[in-house]
């Protein structure tokens, strides 16, 4: 929680209600008319631009974003609803409330307007009505509950170091944006590397100068660095690049093309049940008027970059700036944050709601009822945004609730934490628990109502959970990063087993596939993708007997294992040390244990690691336990003494960031290439969409027989879906093909990697496995009917 002194220095605090007709109020009204007038002009201008469909570069999208998100968030932020909250926390509440209102209003219009003969309720006009209603409603509310703004005071009082940090973090953004454009044009990684180096240096100086930097400035610096980290990956490729995002884009286009969201349009798709990637991007796209992929690639990242700021705010509830900044560096530096989250937009929005929910649970300025209400509202946002995030969140609440009760049974533990019924005046250790059986039931009811009754998508989760406890199947290779990982099948074995299974399947299917005897003649050997060549620095180290590849591998593995070790040490320290317990409060400790238990379950139960992904679960857990990780590192280095343990923890944290972001492997070489820095590597081969592939799909879209005969693709196929508004029907499925299962009559699309390197990718047990694609098999069984050097189509 922020100290009284810091709260007083916050730029915002509730305005005292002045008596009607007072001179001061009249003077304020006279001098403050222009922000209202400017707001009205901006809102009107954005209305006109969106309604007329004018494409005004930069200005149009900026005004559209201002209309639908910027202005309502600003109104909420500058109201006195969030009294007592820090700047970051206030921003978090404001953005998530506006997002939830947009989701609910969109859903309401989507359901109600067809009753009145409006069959495209998510077309431009209804969406603008939603945005205007939201703006007007929040404007009226904010007029009744204003908070005085002190922007000028804040800006004027910026310290020298604060200014430097702000400029440095702001510079990171254009560096990575231009860097991504360079890479997309086939040029080098120089600018992105400069951006990463700038991020690292800024974070180092933020840690060094933190005692002279105010909370608001720290939040802005964290936001800009997080945004840079996200854009570095999200802006790769001119089309939709990434794993889940390609499926997400399909359901977004489906909603946008029909001007209406309908769960039955794509009945078996859990993606289609996520309003965060159907209704929300459609609403945004109607007013920002940009190339549709940029709604995900840019605007969603602008929103999600707030998540680390909320992680900082959560950490600041209990810990110092130093620990909280380190916690955020671990959160942002975790590879999933910048390599996977930009490809999982539904989860990005889900994580924002999770963070807001945790802030609500731990908001000791609120009464218990307010906290519980906040939790349930956040849970509604999570469920509407992303089903899996909700399952994990509910799991954390349940385990945390049980854990709190079990811990209370320990005599030495409960003696120090007598339960009290006083709330706001009590210290954190004795505040009444927010998470009780009632709030858990409410959260579960939301899950059942939306996932079960409204969309019918909860069944897939239940079957995944059932199979998790019964399955003897494989587990994702991600678990190998775990401290107690057990074992995963080597990819060669997985590939060989899969080949045998598919040959049997082929033989049993008669003449549906290419002849099994022919398919069996062509092997599909496993292949490892080449690592980056050694750089000058890498060669220099090698000449001095330092094996660079091994160092890179060990540092990355060490980083993963160190983080888990630090969490384990941290949680034990917190439970054991009375000072820590008093600081964090019993409930937060229990919820942290809940996060760790859920993470453990993901690792131990193989099916869950395949279905959900251990790394994503770790990222979600870090929202709460990142400071626990830092406490663990400080505890491990405690023998070094007060000063040096802090220095050691800082060096390790920044070292992890240096390695995981790709800066270290890129400077040395000898490590698999990362997509944010290279035009090669696993993600590039599998998910990067080349213009030649787009051209091939467009050529195919007009051909007869594509839908009944089917379309197969040599790599994960979502990127080949037909996405032009006239083509999107939700019935055009592209099937991933393994060479032994090539259908005789289907069209077959070979992607850029397969055409240029003969490497194809299969998804086995949630892992990407590379193999040599047998070109001879297709050449001897099908006609090559389209070829542009980057994509080939066979029939």
């Amino acid at each position, binding site marked *: 929680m922020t100290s009284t*002194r*810091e709260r007083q*220095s916050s730029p915002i605090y509730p305005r005292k209600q002045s008596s009607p007709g007072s001179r001061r109020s009249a003077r304020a009204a006279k001098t403050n008319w222009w922000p209202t007038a400017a707001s009205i002009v901006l809102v009107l201008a954005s209305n006109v631009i969106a309604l007329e469909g004018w494409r005004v570069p930069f200005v149009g999208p900026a005004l559209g974003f201002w209309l639908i998100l910027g202005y309502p968030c600003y109104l909420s932020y500058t109201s006195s609803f969030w009294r007592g909250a820090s700047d970051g926390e206030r921003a978090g509440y404001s953005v998530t409330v506006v997002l939830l209102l947009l989701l609910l209003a969109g859903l309401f219009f989507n359901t109600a307007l067809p009753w009145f003969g409006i069959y495209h309720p998510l077309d431009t006009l209804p969406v603008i009505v939603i945005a205007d209603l939201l703006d007007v409603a929040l404007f009226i509310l904010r007029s009744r509950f204003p908070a005085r703004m002190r922007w000028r005071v804040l800006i004027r009082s910026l*310290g*020298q*170091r604060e200014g*430097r940090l702000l*400029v440095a973090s702001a510079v990171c953004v254009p560096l990575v944006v*231009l*860097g991504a*454009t*360079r890479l*997309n*044009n*086939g*040029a080098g990684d120089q*600018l992105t590397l400069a951006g990463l180096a700038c991020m690292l240096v800024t974070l180092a100086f933020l840690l060094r100068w933190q*005692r*002279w930097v*105010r909370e608001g400035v720290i939040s802005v610096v964290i936001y800009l660095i997080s945004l840079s980290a996200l854009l570095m990956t999200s802006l790769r490729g*001119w089309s939709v690049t990434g794993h889940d995002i390609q499926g997400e884009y399909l359901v977004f286009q489906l909603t946008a093309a029909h001007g209406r969201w309908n769960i039955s349009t794509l009945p078996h798709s859990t993606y289609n049940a996520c309003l965060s990637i159907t209704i929300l991007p459609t609403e945004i796209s109607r007013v920002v008027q940009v190339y549709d992929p940029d709604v995900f690639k840019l605007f969603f990242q602008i929103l999600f970059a707030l998540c680390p700021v909320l992680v900082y705010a959560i950490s600041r509830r209990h*810990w*110092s*700036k*130093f*620990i909280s900044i380190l916690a955020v560096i671990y959160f942002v530096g975790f590879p999933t944050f910048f390599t996977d989250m930009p490809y999982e937009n539904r989860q990005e929005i889900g994580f924002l709601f999770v963070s807001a929910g945790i802030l609500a649970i731990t908001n000791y300025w609120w009464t218990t009822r307010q906290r519980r209400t906040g939790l349930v509202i956040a849970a509604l946002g999570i469920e509407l945004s992303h089903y899996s995030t909700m399952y994990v969140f509910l799991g954390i609440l349940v385990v945390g609730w049980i854990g709190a009760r079990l811990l209370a049974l320990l005599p030495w533990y409960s003696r120090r934490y007598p339960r009290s019924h006083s709330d706001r005046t009590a210290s954190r250790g004795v505040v009444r628990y927010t998470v009780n059986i009632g709030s858990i039931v409410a959260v579960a009811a939301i899950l059942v109502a939306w996932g079960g009754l409204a969309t019918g998508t909860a069944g897939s989760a239940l079957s995944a959970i059932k199979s998790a406890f019964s399955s003897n199947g494989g587990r994702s290779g991600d678990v190998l990063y775990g401290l107690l990982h057990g074992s995963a099948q080597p990819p060669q074995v997985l590939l060989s087993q899969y080949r045998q299974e598919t040959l049997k399947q082929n033989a049993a299917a008669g003449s549906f596939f290419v002849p099994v005897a022919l398919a069996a003649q062509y092997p599909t050997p496993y292949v490892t993708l080449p690592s980056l060549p050694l750089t000058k620095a890498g060669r220099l180290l090698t000449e001095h007997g330092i094996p660079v590849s091994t160092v890179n591998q060990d540092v990355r593995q060490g980083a993963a294992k160190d983080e888990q070790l630090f969490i384990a040490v941290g949680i034990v*320290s917190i439970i*054991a*040390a*009375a*000072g*820590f317990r008093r*600081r964090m409060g019993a409930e937060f400790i229990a919820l942290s244990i809940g996060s760790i238990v859920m993470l453990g379950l993901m690792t131990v139960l193989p099916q869950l690691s395949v279905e959900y992904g251990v790394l994503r679960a770790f990222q979600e857990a870090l929202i709460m336990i990142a400071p626990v990780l830092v*406490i663990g590192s*400080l*505890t491990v280095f*405690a023998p070094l003494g*007060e000063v040096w*343990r*802090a220095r050691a923890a800082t060096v390790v944290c920044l070292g992890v960031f240096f390695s995981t972001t790709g800066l270290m492997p890129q400077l040395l070489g000898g490590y698999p290439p990362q997509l944010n820095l290279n035009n090669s590597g696993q993600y590039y081969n599998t998910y990067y969409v*080349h*213009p*030649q592939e787009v*051209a091939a799909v467009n*050529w195919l879209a007009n*051909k*007869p*027989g594509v839908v009944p005969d089917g379309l197969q693709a040599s790599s994960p196929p979502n990127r080949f879906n037909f996405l032009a508004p006239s083509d999107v029907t939700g019935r055009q499925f592209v099937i991933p093909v393994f060479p032994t299962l090539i259908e005789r009559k289907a069209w077959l699309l070979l992607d850029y990697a397969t055409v240029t390197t003969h490497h194809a990718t299969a998804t086995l047990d949630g892992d990407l496995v590379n193999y040599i694609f047998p070109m001879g098999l297709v050449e*001897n069984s*099908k*006609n*090559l*009917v*389209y*070829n*542009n*050097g*980057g994509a080939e*189509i066979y*029939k």
Partner: protein
Amino acid sequence: MAGQRRRLVSNTVTAEVMQPEPAGRRWWVFLGPLALVALVLSFAIPSGRHDWALSLFRQPTRYTALSFNRAWALPGSIVPYQPMKISFTINNQEGKTESYRYVVTQTSGGSSLMLGKSTKTIASSGSWKVSTVIRPTCLIAPCRIEVSLPGHPEIIDFLTAVKA
């Protein structure tokens, strides 16, 4: 034990107080103009301008697309020496006017034979729809009819059976 616990929650964890900021050097006075000069210089040099273009604007991807026009209805068999109509399209996306030569060949039983060829200049983003009649002479199945563009790597082909 108590001392150890105290140490765990000591200054690093609890330090909260904002300290008055010591005066620092004004690096920006020097760095700002320096950055501005570097920026201007980078626009003055041709290679610098090229790098800016690569960093700011999307550059077109250059390729040539070759495709059969009725790809779903290619002949499944041929009668040797009988005329057969094939049609295909060459699409120029090389960003400049190009002269294209196509060659139609048959391959059967290890031997190849050219069946037709022609040349045409295609404007940038333009297409050439070719409809031509060939007389394949394959006697052994499978017979592969191939269209290639010498000087370009793109090839399309289809396999046919041979009727007596």
